């Protein structure tokens, strides 16, 4: 690798967060001038932290940054901008009540003596948009723009400030396919004009489409840097997940019994007004693991939130044991013997400062069997906590330890212990093994199978294709909020075929999908 070509080198970067979590471990990262460089990795792999360091939002604990061969210190975003680094965040940093031009010049306002010179701001916006062939109306208010247009404003804003290196944090996550196509055209244009782009994503297809080189992070370390052409999507995902250890899940064929969860015509809209679920209907039976596959952001999270009562819905029906849950509190839903391993365990699954014991009883602390004369039965609770800790192999210093001090895998074991030990008849597990180590992954998967064998219904949502195919007994594929495929049996499925459904290339005929409804 010719070092001279590297416009940016980050060497030996380590970042430890105040809670002791090591987000980056001696990461090396280099980008050549004029390329589109993909930075990929699973959630929590350290991509965002690395880019925050580059943009001056976080400071590294070790390591250095070289720009054009010169060591630089980037202490805050304004010094990053000074060095020609621009960042487009996933969540836009724009003032909705102002016009595009006003947003563009924010902080570098052109002045007419001491008054803001709006005419010049308009001109500056027009000039830069023309230079890069962006089609945008400088006088429009940002609140009236579509998501794709807002993103354009963000990119232009960075360019106006002289950005040579542009960091795009999952830019396509919020875009429609058409908008994505348009963005790619613009990115290629930027590249032609000599800009360097760092493209954070976990959509492999997009990376193959526009990126030149790729750096893969896993678990805070860099696990490879290569030309994109030389790697297949399979190679990339193998490296990303570190799936050299193939976990073969031992399970007997499922014996599905009666339907416990029944969803009909369910639709939902997210906070941006985008239709995230569209007329979804399916049944889940006891004694089966029902997989929901799909690329992230195709309605899985919303579906999970609706089933567990975290998100209200207005159109369609969701029945658990024949009870419509629309107006039930979360506690009432849980009392129908349902439980939930949440996607975002740090936000929903635990209270970090609380002890392991307190985290284990959050769904049952109020029940009669744990209270006497207004006081909690401390001994009984401790006894059960201790047995959960040993049964679920939680590595810790004891039940009094604050849970945030555990590793991700052990935190997940605590969540699983709580949700599985309550004897659920229906359990929804959302990304159960994301970001946890191989040992914990295997353990959690075994527990899921054990639960099914005990006669419970398991709804498994996972972005990990391998996991959802191996673990599920039957599965549906969600694409843009709709069921595009239903496989009653997952035995003879190929990843190729699944991929085509997940990407929306293929779609089953409605009657075949309709087989997912068992109870008429």
């Amino acid at each position: 690798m010719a070092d001279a070509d590297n416009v940016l080198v980050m060497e030996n970067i380590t970042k430890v967060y105040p809670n002791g979590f090591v987000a980056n471990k001696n990461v090396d990262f280099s980008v050549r001038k004029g390329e589109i460089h993909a930075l990929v990795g699973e959630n929590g792999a350290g991509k965002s932290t690395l880019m925050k360091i580059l943009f001056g939002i976080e400071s590294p604990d070790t390591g250095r940054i070289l720009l054009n061969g010169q060591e630089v210190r980037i202490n805050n975003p304004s010094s990053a901008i000074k060095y020609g680094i621009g960042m487009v965040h996933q969540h836009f940093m724009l003032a909705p009540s102002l016009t595009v031009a006003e947003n563009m010049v924010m902080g570098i306002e052109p002045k007419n003596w001491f008054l803001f010179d709006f005419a010049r701001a308009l001109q500056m916006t027009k000039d830069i948009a023309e230079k890069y062939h962006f089609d945008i109306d400088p006088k429009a208010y940002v609140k009236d723009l579509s998501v794709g247009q807002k993103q354009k404003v963000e990119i232009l804003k960075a360019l106006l400030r002289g950005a040579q290196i542009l960091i795009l944090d999952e830019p396509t996550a919020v875009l429609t396919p058409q908008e994505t196509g348009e963005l790619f055209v613009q990115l290629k244009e930027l590249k032609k004009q000599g800009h360097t782009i760092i493209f954070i994503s976990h959509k492999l297809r997009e990376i193959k489409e526009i990126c030149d080189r790729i750096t893969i992070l896993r678990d805070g370390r860099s696990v490879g840097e290569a030309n994109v052409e030389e790697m297949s999507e399979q190679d990339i995902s193998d490296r990303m997940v570190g799936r050299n250890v193939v976990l073969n899940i031992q399970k007997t064929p499922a014996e599905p019994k009666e339907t416990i969860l029944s969803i009909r015509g369910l639709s939902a809209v997210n906070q941006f007004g985008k239709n995230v679920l569209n007329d979804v209907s399916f049944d889940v039976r006891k004694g089966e693991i029902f997989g929901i596959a799909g690329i992230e952001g195709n309605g899985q999270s919303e579906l999970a939130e609706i089933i567990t009562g975290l998100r209200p819905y207005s159109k369609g029906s969701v029945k658990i044991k024949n009870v419509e849950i629309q107006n039930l509190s979360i506690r009432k839903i849980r009392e129908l013997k349902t439980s939930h391993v949440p996607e975002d365990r740090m936000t929903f699954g635990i209270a970090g400062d609380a002890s392991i014991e307190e985290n284990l009883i959050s769904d049952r602390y109020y029940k009669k069997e744990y209270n006497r004369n207004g006081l909690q039965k401390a001994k009984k609770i401790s006894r059960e906590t201790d047995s959960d800790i040993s049964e679920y192999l939680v590595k810790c210093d004891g039940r009094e330890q604050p849970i945030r001090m555990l590793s991700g895998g052990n935190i997940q074991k605590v969540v699983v212990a709580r949700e599985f030990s309550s004897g659920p008849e229906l359990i929804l597990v959302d990304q159960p093994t994301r970001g946890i180590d191989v040992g914990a992954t295997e353990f959690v998967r075994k527990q899921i199978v054990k639960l099914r064998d005990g006669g419970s219904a398991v709804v498994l949502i996972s972005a990990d294709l391998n996991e959802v195919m191996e673990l599920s007994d039957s599965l549906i594929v969600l694409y843009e909020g709709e069921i595009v495929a239903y496989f009653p049996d997952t035995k003879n499925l190929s990843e190729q075929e699944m991929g085509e459904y997940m990407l929306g290339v293929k779609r089953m005929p409605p009657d075949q999908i309709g087989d997912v409804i068992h109870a008429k």
Partner: protein
Amino acid sequence: MQNKRSYSSKTIESRFEVLRVATAIGISLLVALLLITFASKQPLNALKWFLAGPILTMRNFGNVLELFIPLTFGGLSIAVMFQCNQFNMAAEGSFFLGGLGAGIIAVGIKMPAGIHAAAAIAVGALFGVVLCVIPALMKVKWKANEVVSSLMLNYVALFFGNYVLQYMLFDPDAGYNASHIFPRSVRLPVIIPRTGVHAGIFLAIIMVVVTYLFLYRTKWGYAIRITGQNQNFAKYSGIGVGSTIILSQVAGGALAGIGGATQVLGMYTRFSWTTLPGYGWDGILISILANNNPKFIPLAAFFLAYLRVGADIMSRRSDVAPEVVSIIQAIIVVLIAGKMFLDTYKHKMIVKNSQEQVKEGSLT
């Protein structure tokens, strides 16, 4: 290996919590001593009265204990609400209204001794609850920020109290702005002769225990703490977040109300508050010092009472003004509330610790 890492970061963290409070208190006392040394013509005399004054005579120590009572109630009230992550500042108003409620019962109704005092305190608690629960309801129903609404409500409470005093309780023979005199049946007896230390101190200590048990041993306390630590997690677990927030403010309001009632019945013979007493504000400082744990509230309340009385004695016996306590308080609050204080040092320890683990290859 997991154990080793957790063990060390746990030790580091708990060590730093104690160190932070101790350092903050140390620095603030040091600054105060330096100020006194420079400001006073006889610094040694001033320091003697400041530091040792409160324990030199029984009367002075009595003053410390008298002040300890309302400070403890203020601290407990704030602690319960802060544990739920609700920054309800209406504890101040509740304290005032608690005193008012007790005053109304004291002069308005005739009852046998003992029962009269109990009834007055109960009504004080009720008055406290009514005020503190308003910001909570507004928060739960309309997401109104409780800090703003509760701060404003304190003035509503104050002027309501002034109105009641002027038009309902006022005794023209008192010679000042005060209610009719309290009958014996309602006053809290003095328990240490020749001091003002009254039976309210027992109530304060009982309430410390009760509040501790409530927060750490009941299902309601559990819900309050979990909601305070992570509202999303509480909601996901099926805890009624709204009702829990309201419950914590009810408990906080009751504690402040009891505190106000106890103070009025124990220390005065008439209700004569025409300004906010300030014990709710002090409660914030005390609760922060005690890390919102009722267990440590008496310690923090005693510490602050001691400083206040010491400064007061010093101002009478030397040429230093009592405001030196405000300086000490301000420094403590800034250092403890400033989350970054000593953080660099702590972070260095954690980084070093983690890096060793990375080198060993145990952190995966």
